[in-house]
C-alpha cells in the first residue's frame, strides 16, 4: 500500500500531464503540425533525391517562393476575411500580361510598368471585392466566375500581343535586377518577398486593419455588432489580394520575360493547397503569414521534387489533390475538435495526500457549538459575494461584491450602505495601507488601490513571467488576498494560474500547486513572484514581527509561515497543519492571536478522491461538470489560533443558517465581522472577553 502510494506520488510529481492541455491552449499550436510536415517532406526529399539540398536548388526555390508565396499571402488574407479567391490564377495571368505589355511592347519605364501591373490587380480585386463585400455574393462561386472571365480576357488579349512580347526585349537594369539580380547571393525578388511578408505579418497581427480582418472572418455578425465596417473590410481583403497577386506577377514577368497560354492555370489549386496545408483555416479568422509561407515552401518542395523525379504532370495533379483533401479534412476536424479535446485534457488532477483526522470528542476545542448562530446580520440581501470584510478607523465597514463594487456600511449601526468604489472584476481580499488607502485584490483583474475619496487606481496586474511555464503566467488571473508589510510592500497571493475565478472549484479537483505568492514594492513599482507551486494560496497576513507572514494553502489544509525579511529571510515552514477544513483568509486578532476562516470542512470521500488522481481525471472526462465532486463548502467555521499555532477556540453555526461558510473574519472593537464569498450578508458576533478598544489597524499601524 505504502509502496504503491509512493509510486503514485512520484508518477504525478514527475510526469507533466498538464503540459498537453496547456500546449493546446497556445495559438501557435496550429502551426506546429504544418511545420513538422515541412520538416518530414524535406527529409524525405533529401533521402530520395540526391543533391536536393544544393545552393542552386535554394536560389531557384527562393525565386519561385517569392512569386508563389505572394499569391499564397493574397489568398491567406482573403481566407482570413472569411472568403476565398479562386481567381488568383487568372488575375496573375492578366497582371503578367499587363507588365509585359508595358515593358516589352510599350517600352515604359519600370515604375510605370509596376503601376500598370498593380492597377490591373487592383481593378480585378476591386471587382471581386465589390461583388462579394457589397453585393454579398458567395465568394466561392463568384471568384470561380471571375476566374473564367479574367481567363477569357487573357485568352482574347494574349494571342494579339504574343509576338510583340517575344519580339522585343526591354533595356532596363532595374528590370533585370528584379528578375535576375541577387544581393550577397540572395535573389532580389526573394528580398522583396521577405519585406512584404514581414510587413503583412505586422499588419495582420499587430495593427488594427489586421485585427478587423480576423474579426470579420472569425465571426461576421459579432464584428458587425462591434461596429466594424464589415462590407468595406471584406472588399479591401480582395483588393489586397489583387495587389499582392499583381506584385507576384511583376516578379514573374521580370524573371521570365515572357508568358505562355497556360500561365496561371491551376495556380488556384496549388495555392489553395499551400495555404490550407500551412494551417490557414478555411472557416476564416484563423491563420497567419507564417502559415502561408510554410505551406508555400511545402508545396514548392513537393512539386519541384516530383519534377526532379521526372513524374508526369498528372501525378503532380494527383498528389496535390490528395494533399489538399488531407489538409482540408484535417482542418475541418481540427477546428471542430480542438476545443473538445482541450476541454477533455486540460484538467489534470494530481496526487495530494492529507493526514488522517483524529476522532474528536465533545470536549475537544473543535467540538461543534452554536456561537455563530446568534450573529447579527448586516446588509442582508444587499451584498452579493462579500469575500472579505475590513473596517476603517472610523468603524465603517467595507466589502467587495461580485458586481465589481466596494460597498461601505456606515457606522455605527451599519444599516445604511453606499457604493464606495466601482472597480470591476470581483474584489476579494481587502486591507488598509497606512495612509488610509484601501487596497484590494480583484479577481480577474489585479491589485487595485482605492483612495479615501473613492478614486480607483491600479497597483499592479502583472508579475515576472516564469521561464519554463507554458501558460503565460505574467498576468494576474486570480489574486486572492493581500497584506501590507510595515515598509509598505504589498504581499498578495494568487490562488491559481490555470483557471479563472469562476472555475476555482476545478482547481480544487486538480489539487496541484498552481498558485503563488507575489510581492509588489511601491517604491520601485516592481512586482515579483516570491513563491511558486502553492496549493491554492488564499489568506495572507503579516506576523507581528514584521519580517514574516502567514499564508493559507486551501486545498492542502495548512497554514505556512514565510520570512521575507530579517535573519531567516527566505525560510518557509508549516505553521499549522492538518486543519479540519479548508482555510481561507487569515487575520490578526487581539491578544496576539490569529483568526482563520474555514470556508468548508474536509470530508473523508473528498480526501480519498485527492489520493486517487486517475479517478478524478476519469470523472472530469466522462461526466458533466454539474456532476463532479466538489469540496464541501456547505459548512465551515472560524478558528482562533495562538501566535505559536495552537487552536484555542472554534466558532460554529450549528443550525447552518446564518454563516455556515466563511471566507473572512475581521476583529474590531470586541466584535468579529464575518464575510463569505457565496453569502448575501455580512455577520458580526460579540467576542467574549475581548478588548473593546482593540482594532486591527490600531494594533498594526499604531494609534493615530
Amino acid at each position, binding site marked *: 500500500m505504502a509502496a504503491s502510494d509512493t509510486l503514485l506520488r512520484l508518477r504525478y510529481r514527475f510526469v507533466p500531464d498538464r503540459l498537453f492541455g496547456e500546449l493546446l491552449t497556445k495559438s501557435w499550436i496550429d502551426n506546429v503540425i504544418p511545420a513538422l510536415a515541412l520538416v518530414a517532406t524535406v527529409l524525405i526529399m533529401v533521402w530520395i533525391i540526391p543533391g536536393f539540398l544544393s545552393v542552386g536548388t535554394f536560389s531557384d526555390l527562393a525565386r519561385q517562393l517569392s512569386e508563389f508565396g505572394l499569391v499564397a499571402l493574397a489568398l491567406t488574407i482573403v481566407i482570413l476575411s472569411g472568403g476565398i479567391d479562386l481567381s488568383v490564377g487568372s488575375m496573375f495571368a492578366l497582371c503578367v500580361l499587363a507588365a509585359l505589355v508595358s515593358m516589352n511592347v510599350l517600352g515604359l519605364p519600370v515604375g510605370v510598368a509596376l503601376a500598370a501591373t498593380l492597377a490591373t490587380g487592383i481593378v480585378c480585386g476591386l471587382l471581386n471585392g465589390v461583388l462579394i463585400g457589397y453585393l454579398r455574393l458567395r465568394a466561392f462561386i463568384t471568384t470561380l466566375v471571375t476566374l473564367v472571365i479574367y481567363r477569357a480576357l487573357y485568352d482574347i488579349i494574349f494571342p494579339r500581343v504574343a509576338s510583340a512580347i517575344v519580339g522585343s526585349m526591354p533595356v532596363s537594369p532595374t528590370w533585370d535586377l528584379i528578375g535576375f539580380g541577387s544581393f550577397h547571393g540572395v535573389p532580389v525578388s526573394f528580398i522583396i518577398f521577405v519585406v512584404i511578408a514581414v510587413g503583412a505579418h505586422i499588419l495582420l497581427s499587430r495593427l488594427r486593419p489586421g485585427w478587423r480582418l480576423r474579426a470579420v472572418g472569425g465571426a461576421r455578425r459579432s464584428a458587425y455588432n462591434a461596429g466594424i465596417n464589415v462590407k468595406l473590410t471584406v472588399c479591401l481583403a480582395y483588393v489586397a489580394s489583387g495587389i499582392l497577386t499583381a506584385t507576384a506577377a511583376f516578379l514573374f514577368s521580370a524573371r521570365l520575360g515572357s508568358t505562355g497560354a497556360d500561365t496561371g492555370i491551376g495556380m488556384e489549386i496549388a495555392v489553395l493547397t499551400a495555404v490550407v496545408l500551412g494551417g490557414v483555416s478555411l472557416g476564416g479568422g484563423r491563420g497567419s503569414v507564417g502559415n502561408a509561407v510554410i505551406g508555400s515552401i511545402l508545396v514548392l518542395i513537393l512539386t519541384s521534387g516530383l519534377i526532379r523525379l521526372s513524374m508526369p504532370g498528372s501525378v503532380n495533379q*494527383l498528389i496535390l*489533390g490528395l494533399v489538399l483533401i488531407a489538409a*482540408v479534412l484535417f482542418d475541418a476536424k481540427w477546428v471542430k475538435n480542438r476545443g473538445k479535446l482541450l476541454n477533455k485534457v486540460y484538467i489534470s488532477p494530481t496526487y495530494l495526500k492529507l493526514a488522517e483526522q483524529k476522532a474528536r470528542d465533545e470536549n475537544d476545542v473543535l467540538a461543534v457549538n452554536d456561537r455563530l448562530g446568534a450573529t447579527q446580520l448586516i446588509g442582508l440581501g444587499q451584498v452579493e459575494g462579500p469575500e472579505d470584510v475590513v473596517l476603517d478607523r472610523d468603524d465603517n465597514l467595507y466589502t467587495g461584491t461580485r458586481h465589481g463594487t466596494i460597498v461601505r456600511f456606515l457606522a455605527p449601526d451599519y444599516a445604511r450602505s453606499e457604493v464606495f468604489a466601482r472597480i470591476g472584476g470581483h474584489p476579494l481580499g481587502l486591507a488598509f495601507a497606512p495612509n488610509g488607502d484601501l487596497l484590494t485584490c480583484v479577481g480577474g483583474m489585479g491589485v487595485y488601490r482605492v483612495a479615501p475619496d473613492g478614486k480607483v487606481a491600479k497597483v499592479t496586474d502583472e508579475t515576472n513571467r516564469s521561464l519554463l511555464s507554458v501558460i503565460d503566467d505574467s498576468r494576474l488571473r486570480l489574486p486572492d488576498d493581500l497584506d501590507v508589510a510595515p515598509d509598505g510592500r504589498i504581499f498578495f497571493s494568487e490562488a491559481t494560474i490555470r483557471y479563472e475565478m469562476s472555475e476555482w472549484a476545478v482547481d480544487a479537483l486538480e489539487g496541484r500547486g498552481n498558485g503563488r505568492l507575489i510581492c509588489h514594492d511601491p517604491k520601485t513599482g516592481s512586482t515579483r513572484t516570491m513563491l511558486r507551486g502553492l496549493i491554492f494560496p488564499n489568506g495572507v497576513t503579516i506576523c507581528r514581527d514584521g519580517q514574516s507572514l502567514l499564508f493559507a494553502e486551501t486545498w492542502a489544509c495548512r497554514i505556512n509561515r514565510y520570512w521575507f525579511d530579517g535573519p531567516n529571510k527566505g525560510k518557509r515552514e508549516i505553521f499549522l497543519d492538518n486543519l479540519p477544513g479548508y482555510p481561507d483568509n487569515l487575520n490578526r486578532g487581539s491578544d496576539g492571536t490569529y483568526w482563520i476562516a474555514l470556508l468548508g470542512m474536509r470530508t473523508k470521500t473528498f480526501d480519498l478522491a485527492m489520493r486517487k488522481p486517475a479517478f478524478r481525471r476519469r470523472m472530469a472526462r466522462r461526466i458533466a461538470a454539474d456532476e463532479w465532486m466538489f469540496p464541501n463548502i456547505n459548512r465551515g467555521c472560524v478558528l482562533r489560533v495562538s501566535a505559536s499555532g495552537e487552536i484555542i477556540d472554534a466558532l460554529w453555526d450549528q443550525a447552518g443558517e446564518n454563516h455556515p461558510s466563511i471566507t473572512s473574519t475581521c476583529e474590531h472593537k470586541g466584535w468579529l465581522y464575518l464575510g463569505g464569498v457565496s453569502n448575501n450578508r455580512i455577520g458580526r458576533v460579540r467576542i467574549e472577553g475581548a478588548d473593546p478598544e482593540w482594532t486591527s489597524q490600531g494594533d498594526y499601524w499604531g494609534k493615530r
Partner: protein
Amino acid sequence: MSEATANPGPRLPTLLKSQEGIVLALAVLAFALFSFLLPSFFSAGNLLALVRSVSILGILALGMALVVIARGIDVSLIATMVVSVSWAFVIARSGYSLEFALLIGALFAITAGVLIGSLIAFGEVAPIFATLAAGSVIYGLGRTFFFTLEMQNVPPGAGWFSLIGKGRVLGVPVTVVAFAALCLVLHLVLSRTRFGWQIYAMGNNPAAAKITGIAYRPMVVAQYAISALIAYGAGLILASSASAINARLFNSTMIYDILLVVVLGGIGLNGGHGKVRNVILGTVFVGILLNGMTIMNIDYTIQNLVKGVVLLLAIVIDSLVNPRDEQTSQQGDL
C-alpha cells in the same frame, strides 16, 4: 424562407418578377432576336441540333441540380465523367466485352461519388473544397494509371452503343429523349418521393433536417453517388455521339457551363428550392445563347467571356432574389 415556399403555385405576375421569369423572358427575347436576325437560326434542323447539343449539358445539370438543391455543389462532375468513360473504353479495347467494361466504368463513377460524399458527410469538409480537390485527384488518377492518351475512341464493334448518340426515336434524337426521360424521372423523384422531399429539407435548413431525424449523412453520400452516375451516363452519350471522349474536357469551361445552366435556370445556390423545369429553362437559354453565338461566328474565347459575364449577372440576380439567410448559413459556408 424563400419566396417559392411562401407562394405555392407561381402566378404569372410573381413569376415574371422572379429570376425564373426574367430568364424566361430573356430566353424568348433572344430566341425572337436570333430568329429575326440570323436567317439560319429558325430552322427545324438547327433547332433540333440546338436541343441535341445542349441536352448533354442538361443531363449534367440535372445531376448538379440534385446536389445544389441539397445545399451542396459538385465541381468534380467533369472529372468523373471523362475518367470513368475513358477507363471503360480502355478496358473494352483490351479484350473484355463492352458491357463488362461499361459496368466497370459505372462502378468507378459510383465509387468516386460515394467517396466524395463520404468526405463531405463524414469528413465534414465543405462540398466545394472536397469536390474541387476530388476532381484533381480523379483526373490525376485516371491520367496516371488508367489511360495515357487524351482522346479515347469508342471501341470498334459496338453497334448498339453508337445508336445512343446517333439514333433517333420517332425522328427525335436519342440524346434528347434521354434528357427528357431523365427530366421526368428526376421530377418524379423530387416531387413524389420521400427521398426528394428530404433533399429539399436538407437544403432549406441542414441543422433542422438533422434534428428531425433525416439520415443526413447517408443522404449526402447518395446524392453525390447519383450525380456521379448521371455524369457517367452523360459521358456515355457524349462519347457515343462524338465517337470518342476527350479527357481535356476536364480543363475546359464545361463545369462553368453546367453551373451556368443551374444558376440561370433559377436554382439558388442556397439550396432548398428549384425544380426540374428550372434546369430545362436554363438549358434552353444557354442553348440559344451558345447556338446563336456560334452561328454569328463569335470567337470561342469571346464566347467564354460572354458566358462568364452572363453567369456573373445570373449570380448577382440570384443573390438579390434569394438573399442568404444569416440564421442558417454557417461559418465557412462559402
